[in-house]
């Protein structure tokens, strides 16, 4: 089983971090986290890769997702580097690869890097949706220039960065803002995942506001995909 990939001299290992869903204990949904062995900063490692390496990693991630869907009934979120979809040709190739993928996946694009101009991006995101997959905006709230890609781009899911929930319990103003954030996402029809939940008090507070999907050490740590597939199950919600 390909739970690792050799890219040049670097071996990539992949882990799965399950989300906590308040509305369904049985549904298994989570993120594939890929670590380049010997690199402490995965983001800078992935940024310097060539397009063909990026595509190879995408296809590998999709194969792993297929295996996970088949044997663990899990839905998998995959990180995609924004540079992969910068050009029309690459977007075509991306969609071809995706249309040959039996498993339904969520594709995460980060707010750290620009996306192609709005018209092409939204047409691309629409095609992802029409193939039955989801798109997500990752690292929401950390974008540059105080603007968010979410103003113009039509992602299905928003992953709320941990920095937005920092110091939440000590700061009433911030609590009101989080309440408004939930209402805005809800009325705009966006699903969400709140990242970086490490304390039960913060979790309880956010559930009270209406948030229902979480990622964090409080619930699940990243587990090696190889071990999960060997065991044939994903750790139950704690």
């Amino acid at each position, binding site marked *: 089983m390909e739970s690792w990939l050799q890219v040049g001299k670097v071996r990539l290992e992949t882990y799965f971090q399950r989300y906590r869903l308040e509305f369904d204990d049985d549904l298994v949904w989570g993120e594939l986290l890929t670590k380049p062995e010997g690199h402490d900063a995965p983001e800078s490692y992935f940024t310097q890769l060539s397009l063909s390496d990026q595509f190879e990693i995408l296809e590998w991630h999709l194969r792993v997702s297929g295996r996970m869907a088949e044997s663990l009934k899990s839905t998998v979120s995959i990180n995609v580097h924004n540079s992969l979809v910068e050009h029309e040709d690459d977007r075509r190739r991306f969609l071809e690869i995706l249309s040959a993928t039996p498993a339904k996946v969520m594709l995460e694009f980060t707010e750290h890097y620009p996306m192609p101009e709005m018209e092409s991006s939204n047409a691309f995101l*629409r095609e992802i949706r029409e193939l039955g997959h989801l798109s997500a905006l990752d690292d929401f709230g950390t974008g540059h220039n*105080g603007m*968010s890609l979410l*103003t113009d781009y039509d992602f299905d899911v928003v992953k709320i960065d941990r920095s937005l929930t920092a110091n939440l319990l000590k700061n009433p*103003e911030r609590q009101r803002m989080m309440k408004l954030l939930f209402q805005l996402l809800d009325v705009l*029809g966006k699903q969400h995942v709140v990242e970086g939940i490490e304390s039960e008090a913060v979790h309880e507070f956010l559930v009270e506001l209406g948030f229902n999907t979480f990622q964090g050490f409080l619930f699940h740590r990243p587990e090696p995909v190889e071990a999960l597939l060997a065991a044939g199950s994903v750790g139950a919600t704690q």
Partner: protein
Amino acid sequence: MTFPVAIDDAERINKLQSLGILDSSPDQNFDRIVHLCQDIFGVEIATISLVDSERQWFKSVIGLEVCETDRDVAFCNYTIMGDDIFEVTDAATHPDFADNALVTGPPNIRYYAGAPFAFEGFKLGAVCLIDPHPRDALDERGRAILKGLAAVVEREIRVQRMLRESLAMLTTVLKESDER
């Protein structure tokens, strides 16, 4: 196919494309409007059409399998030229539409009524009633209802844009309050 084009059409298209509504995901509120159109008026097809540079794209559509058509066959080109309802009671005998591909072929349009909606003064598109049979012109009540629904669409587009801008601003404030 020829169709009327306003002198500020390029500006209008810029405005439409800057809204982020083209190719956006299905929206219950817009879907409710086309369902209401179908129920109230008894037409086979109802759409919320946005007139882009080379196409009309349906933000919401009922009774058709497609999500867009070429712009040059769009009846809405005529609707967005004015502020009032544009209506064709029998396209087969209308000089501008008798040889339109949507009239001579599927969906074989005979009847069309559209009420335009705008954003910041630019007509983005129209709420449209379409039927494969000729119909009488809308009466006063029907016209008022169709215009009312177009006004609801106009307001919804404006409010959704404001909400998305608020979302970006809110996250900025959240970030700053963390740095203080």
